[in-house]
C-alpha cells in the first residue's frame, strides 16, 4: 500500500486536539484497517454454531464492544458464501456504535427514522437489533445511493422498513414533525476517520470543505430534531473527527432547539470525551458527553457519536 500524505494543516489541527497522542494517531491513520463482519441475526438463528463453523475456516476475534461482530483475517469477506446468503455484513467496527447508542428495544414497537441511510449498514444493524419489529423509515436524498440501500435491505432480510427520498437539507413538511421515537443522523461528512481504508480521503480534505459540510449538517440536524417526538432520542454520528462537523453541529442544536445531551454507555469501548473549545470559541460544557473514537483507541476507524434527547 502506498504512503499516505498528511496535509500539514491536518497535522496541526490534530496536534492541537491530541497533543502528544498526535504521533500515534497519525501512525494509526497509516495502518490498514482490520476487516470486520457483523453477524446478521435476522438470518442466522444459531449464532454459536455459525461462529463455530466460521472459526474452523478463519481466524476470528470478537469486537469487544459489540456481541455480534468479529474481526476476521479474510482479505475479502465479500467472497464468502455467508456473504451471498446475507448472513454477514462487512462493516467497520466503529460504525457499529451509533445503532448501539440508540438503545433500541428488541421487543418494542418503535418508529425509527434513519435520515441518511444509504448504503444501509446501520439500517440493517438497527433492523436486527429490533428483530424486524416496529418500523424503520430509511431515507436518503440520492436515488443512486438508494439503489445500494435497496440491495442491502433485501439481501439482509429487512422487513420492518419503508424507504423514502427526503432531502434533509431542505425544510421538511410539518406533517413529519414530532413523529419518530428514535432518529439516527449518520451525516454525510469529510470522512477523515476512514483514512485507513480510503487513503485518498485526505487528498480531498480542506478546512473549507469541513466548513461547507458543517452548514449542511446543521440543516440536517435541525430537520431531524423537528421530526423527533418529545422525549425521543436522536443519535448524531459522523466518520470524521473534525470539530466543525461534530461538536460545533451539536453546539448549534443545543443553542437553538429543546434538546439535551445524554451519556453514551457502551461496555468495553474506549472513548474520549467531546471538546468544549475550538479555534478560540467556547462551546457548551455538555459536549463532554459526546464521544470521540480515535483509530488508536480501539483499532478501528475514527468516529464521533452524540446522543440527544428532545425535552
Amino acid at each position, binding site marked *: 500500500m502506498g504512503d499516505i500524505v498528511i496535509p500539514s494543516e491536518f497535522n496541526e489541527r490534530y496536534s492541537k486536539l491530541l497533543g502528544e497522542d498526535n504521533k500515534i494517531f497519525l501512525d494509526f491513520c497509516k495502518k490498514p484497517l482490520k476487516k470486520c463482519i457483523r453477524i446478521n441475526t435476522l*438470518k442466522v438463528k444459531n449464532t454459536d454454531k455459525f461462529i463455530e463453523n466460521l472459526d474452523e475456516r478463519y481466524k476470528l476475534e470478537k469486537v469487544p464492544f459489540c456481541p455480534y461482530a468479529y474481526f476476521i483475517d479474510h482479505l475479502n469477506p*465479500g*467472497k*464468502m*458464501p455467508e*456473504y*451471498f*446468503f*446475507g448472513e454477514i455484513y462487512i462493516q467497520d467496527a466503529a460504525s457499529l456504535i451509533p445503532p448501539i447508542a440508540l438503545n433500541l428495544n428488541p421487543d418494542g*414497537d418503535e*418508529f425509527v427514522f434513519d435520515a441518511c441511510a444509504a448504503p444501509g449498514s446501520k439500517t440493517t444493524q438497527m433492523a436486527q437489533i429490533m428483530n*424486524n*419489529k*416496529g*418500523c424503520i*423509515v430509511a431515507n436518503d436524498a440520492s436515488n443512486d445511493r*438508494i439503489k445500494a440501500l*435497496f*440491495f442491502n*435491505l*433485501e*439481501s439482509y*432480510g*429487512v*422487513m*420492518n*422498513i*419503508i*424507504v*423514502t*427520498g*427526503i432531502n434533509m437539507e431542505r425544510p421538511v*413538511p*410539518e*406533517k*413529519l414533525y414530532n*413523529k419518530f421515537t428514535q432518529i439516527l443522523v449518520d451525516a454525510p461528512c469529510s470522512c477523515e476517520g476512514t483514512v485507513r481504508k480510503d487513503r485518498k480521503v485526505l487528498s480531498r480534505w480542506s478546512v473549507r470543505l469541513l466548513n461547507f459540510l458543517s452548514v449542511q449538517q446543521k440543516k440536517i440536524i435541525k430537520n431531524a430534531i423537528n421530526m423527533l417526538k418529545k422525549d425521543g432520542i436522536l443519535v448524531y454520528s459522523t466518520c470524521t473527527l473534525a470539530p466543525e462537523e461534530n461538536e460545533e453541529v451539536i453546539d448549534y442544536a443545543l443553542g437553538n432547539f429543546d434538546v439535551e445531551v445524554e451519556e453514551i454507555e457502551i461496555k468495553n469501548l474506549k472513548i474520549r470525551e467531546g471538546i468544549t473549545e475550538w479555534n478560540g470559541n467556547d462551546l457548551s460544557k455538555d459536549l463532554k458527553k459526546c464521544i470521540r473514537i480515535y483509530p488508536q483507541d480501539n483499532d478501528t476507524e475514527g468516529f464521533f457519536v452524540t446522543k440527544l434527547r428532545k425535552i
Partner: protein
Amino acid sequence: MSKHKPNNLIAEFLNYLDERFGIKKEIFFDYGFDTDGERISIFSEGINNKNLDGLIIKSIGLRAGKYFKDIRNGRVKLKISTNFAQIFGRYATKNVLQINDDEVKEYIRGSDLENIRPLNVEEGEVIIKWNENVIGGGNYSQGKIKNQIPKKKRLTKISDENF
C-alpha cells in the same frame, strides 16, 4: 396460470406458495403484503399501526415475488424473489431441489445447472437448497435448472477455497 393477472394478486400469491411449495398462509400471520400491480412485497406487522402521513414512500418491506408474462405462451406467471426464498424457503415441503457442493459453486456464480435428476420435483419454479441453506429460486425443466439469482447478487469471482 391464466392469460391475465388475477384480481386479488396477494391472495393468489399466497395460494401459489401453498400449492407450489407447501408454504402455508399461517406462516405469514405476523406480516402484511403490498402490491403495485406487478410486484408483491412483504413487511412486518409493526408498520401497520404507524402514522405514515407526509411520507412519500419509495418502497415498503422486502420484495417477495412478481407477476410476469411468459413470452413463450403469453401466460401470466408468478416468480418468488431470491431474498424471499432465502428467508421463507425453509418452510417449503415440496418442489425443493437439493444441490451438492460442486453445483452450489456454479450456481452462486450465476451458471445454469445441467444433468439434474431430482426426485419428486415438478417442472417449473423450484426452491434450491444446499445443505440447510436456501440459495433461492430456479426454474427446473428437463434436467436443467435455469439460474434465477439476480446478476447483482451473484458472486462471479468467488473461488473454491471460500467454501
